[in-house]
């Protein structure tokens, strides 16, 4: 056989094999076997060397040796395919039995996650949020309390991977990082399963349960933050889901878990979206605190600056009607009164004073358009879908009193509120307090860090006082609680449907002292008006103080 033909045949064989290795999935797909067959014939051509001047026996023997060698080369290609190229596909492959009653999966894959003693997740007092239960040689994951389970997230290695802290801290919980490096090396050398490290959260499970009791099944969120440290003490979200029902001990044969998964991903209420950090809502009048703070910080107003509000205002041909005046005969109101009584016309004028460009810039100082540094996935709040929106006076006016295009998460609103009573400093929210070893030794404590300082301590003090006034003698007197100083602000977020979302933001402290906790409550389509979020916010704040 001429050399060029042999070279071509060899190259064609290699090309065909390379293409087949990547194009075809199944180990013994008939097409792949055909490719192997054709590639083998081409290899035979490539190996058909000239053997002149030798006896027939020698020539035949060499030919046979080459045939054997080419067959073994094809076998090697198949081995490379099974053991390397399609390795993951095969290792994780599952299948149903012929009659559909049973299923099969690679037992090695099934056992590895169950052989690791996964770290547990505790609340701040050591109550188990996500636990590990040993049965024989295997460890199973449980989430004992539905009020805290979803903060941990689901851990479903065989069905749908994991979410929440179970995903964000997977390496720590499974012992890949975070524990003693020497014991980790030792375990690796001896092929021993790793022992995961535990997480201690800032969450208080008792308060978390209270928050769920207060929410009473309504869709919404409650976030309570320690203003000085940024510790997230409560992060309640409704609706919830049960990660226990997603945990399976094998990749195959889990019709119930599969059905549950289908049901929660198709649920129109979207229980997998934890409202507190991932939900975005129009803040409504709660945002007036931010507008006021920006105006004071930037010198456009003082708490006692006077604005005209006689029941309506015309902006660029649109008439904005005021419904919130406590006294319809008065037409002059201070900024403080505008906040206390939630006067849209006043805050619209404040917004126009600030102007679109500066509003945008100042909102960025408050964290709008920035991702909140947090242990769980967050949705990023925004002042408007783009800066251009604020070119129109009406848009600026709407934004000033909390409508327009603003979208904000409950976590972010709680952080902003905490900043008003923490000398204008917004802390990085802490959820994971510490990584703790199996023996209870603290391996790593998450630091307390400042995130933003959008306003000066003086401005912050003004806003704080105005919010206290709102509760003491303004429109949110329902938030009062004996023995505590409480400040707050409500909000109603217009939605595309008829029923709006209702908000409460607020803070609590001992009288005469710096407030200690801030709260944000949102109720989706709150049917009972603003009284409900106010009551929830007040009660959870008081209980937090009492804990």
């Amino acid at each position: 056989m001429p050399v060029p033909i042999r070279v071509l045949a060899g190259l064609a064989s290699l090309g065909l094999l390379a293409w087949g290795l990547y194009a075809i999935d199944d180990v013994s797909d008939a097409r792949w076997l055909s490719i192997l067959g054709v590639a083998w014939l081409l290899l035979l051509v490539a190996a058909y060397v000239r053997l002149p001047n030798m006896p027939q026996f020698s020539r035949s023997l060499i030919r046979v040796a080459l045939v054997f060698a080419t067959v073994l080369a094809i076998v090697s290609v198949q081995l490379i395919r099974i053991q390397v190229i399609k390795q993951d596909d095969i290792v994780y492959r599952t299948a149903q039995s012929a009659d559909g009653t049973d299923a099969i999966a690679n037992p090695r894959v099934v056992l590895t996650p169950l052989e690791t003693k996964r770290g547990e997740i505790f609340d701040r007092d050591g109550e188990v949020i996500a636990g590990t239960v040993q049965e024989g040689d295997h460890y199973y994951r449980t989430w004992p309390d539905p009020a805290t389970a979803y903060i941990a997230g689901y851990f479903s290695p065989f069905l749908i991977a994991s979410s929440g802290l179970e995903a964000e801290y997977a390496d720590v919980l499974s012992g890949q990082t975070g524990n003693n490096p020497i014991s980790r090396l030792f375990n690796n050398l001896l092929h021993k399963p790793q022992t995961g490290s535990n997480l201690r959260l800032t969450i208080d499970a008792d308060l978390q349960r209270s928050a769920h009791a207060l929410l009473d099944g309504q869709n919404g969120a409650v976030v309570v933050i320690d203003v000085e440290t940024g510790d997230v003490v409560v992060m309640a979200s409704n609706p919830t889901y049960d990660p226990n029902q997603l945990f399976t001990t094998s990749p195959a044969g889990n019709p119930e878990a599969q059905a549950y998964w289908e049901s929660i991903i198709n649920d129109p209420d979207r229980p997998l979206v934890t409202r507190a950090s991932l939900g975005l809502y129009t803040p409504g009048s709660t945002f007036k605190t931010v507008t006021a703070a920006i105006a004071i910080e930037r010198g456009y107003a003082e708490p006692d600056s006077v604005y005209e509000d006689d029941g309506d205002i015309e902006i660029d041909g649109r008439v904005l009607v005021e419904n919130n005046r406590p006294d319809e005969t008065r037409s002059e109101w201070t900024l403080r009164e505008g906040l206390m009584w939630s006067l849209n016309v006043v805050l619209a004028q404040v917004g126009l004073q600030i102007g679109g460009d500066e509003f945008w810039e100042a909102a960025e100082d408050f964290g709008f358009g920035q991702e909140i540094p947090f242990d769980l996935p967050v949705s990023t709040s925004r002042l408007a879908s783009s800066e251009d929106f604020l070119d129109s006076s009406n848009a600026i006016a709407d934004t000033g009193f909390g409508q327009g295009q603003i979208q904000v998460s409950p976590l972010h609103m709680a952080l902003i509120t905490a900043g008003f009573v923490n000398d204008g400093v917004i802390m990085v929210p802490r959820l994971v307090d510490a990584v703790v070893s199996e023996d209870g030794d603290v391996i790593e404590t998450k630091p307390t860090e400042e995130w933003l300082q959008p306003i000066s301590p003086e401005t912050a003090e003004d806003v704080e006082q105005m919010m206290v006034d709102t509760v003491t003698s303004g429109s949110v007197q329902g938030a009062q609680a004996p023995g505590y100083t409480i400040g707050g602000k409500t909000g109603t977020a217009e939605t595309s449907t008829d029923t709006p979302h209702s908000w409460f933001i607020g803070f609590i402290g001992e009288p005469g002292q710096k407030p200690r906790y801030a709260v944000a409550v949102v109720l989706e389509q709150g049917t009972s008006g603003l009284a409900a979020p106010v009551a929830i916010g007040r009660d959870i704040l008081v209980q937090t103080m009492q804990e």
Partner: protein
Amino acid sequence: MPARFRPTFRSIEFGLLIFPALIAIIGLAIIVLVPRAQLDWSWSEIWVGLAFAGAVLVMSLSLGIRGFRGDQTILPITAMISILGLLMIQRLHPDLAAISDAYSALAQRHLMYLAAGLVIMWLIVMLLGPIGLIRWLQRYRYLIILSAIALQISTFFIGTEVYGAKLWIEIGPVQIQPSEIVKLALVAFLASYLDENRDLLASGWKVGPITLPPIPYLIPMGAMWAACLLTLIILNDLGSALLFFGIFLTMLYIATGGLIYVAVGLGSFVAAAYGAWLTLDRIGIRVQNWLNPWKDPLDAGFQPVHSDYALASGGVFGVGLGYGSPTYIPEVQTDYIFSAIGEELGLLGTLAVICLYLFFVVRGFTIALRARDGYVQLFAAGLSSIIAVQTIIIVGGVTRIIPLTGITLPLISYGGSALLTNFALSGMLLYVSGLPRRV
């Protein structure tokens, strides 16, 4: 005789044997230590490895003292392949013994047969060869092949059935697998017969312009072969049937250089296989297990599916000797031992095993090329072809390039008869390499 009795030191062989000897000792140590997970052991626990290392080294020295001047690589390759088998069986034994009492003596038996195999190999080179084993095989070829076929047929009447196939005859405590003996007899017979009639077979009959194969000379040979084949098909030992068929075609081609035989043989085989697939249920299951075992993964496809899992779990480097779970594959110690190697030693391990077999075959063919006598040439080529064809059948089956037909991986799988005959095969190859060469 005294003139040829000049002691020598087989330095290449001895040097190469260091590798299997070290692997034996280190491998045994790993097998002992892994389940224990701590460094606590004694020499007595790895005596198997030490004994193997000692045995092969002493064997090399004794061959040198005997003045044997044959090939210096066959013994190291044989030792290397068989130590892999010994280690795998030693490693599988505790896991298998935990599954069933039937496996409680697995490792001991394998060790016993391996020791007996080494002795047989040694005896053939030291004693049986020099006193004329090869000539006897040539002279009594009809007696040998007929007794082999008789033994094979008797399996049908007195054989023990395991998994729907009658492969063994039980004689007291010993089980014999006749097909293993038949494969050697077949090669001995074919070598002798083909050598005698080589020219006739190669030239053929000229009828006008057409050349016909010399049919009368093909008949006795074809009959012997057909008898073996038929028995095996009746006994449902398709692996051995395929092996005999492969050996037959290979030797016919080597002896005559006639591609026509190969073409006719393969053609008739494909037709027969297709017919069997259409008519026999059990063949249909084999084909489904070959093309898509995932259709019925918990029943018929259970073994191949778990074999896939094991091979894929190994990856490039393997999970490490003793760290895998190959015993999820039923009967891993015989048909699927290659998958166990794939899981624990990875792609590097499986490719190394394939290279070892290829090297064995190439050395065997080299011995055949150098042999002076036409019979010895064919005999050596046939013995090497057994290893090649058998490896291709079982490894091709395990990796699902072809349908799986149960057959042992030479010198590695568990099985007494297989080990003994394969060591005998190595011994005969080694012996004929020491015969006077062609100049």
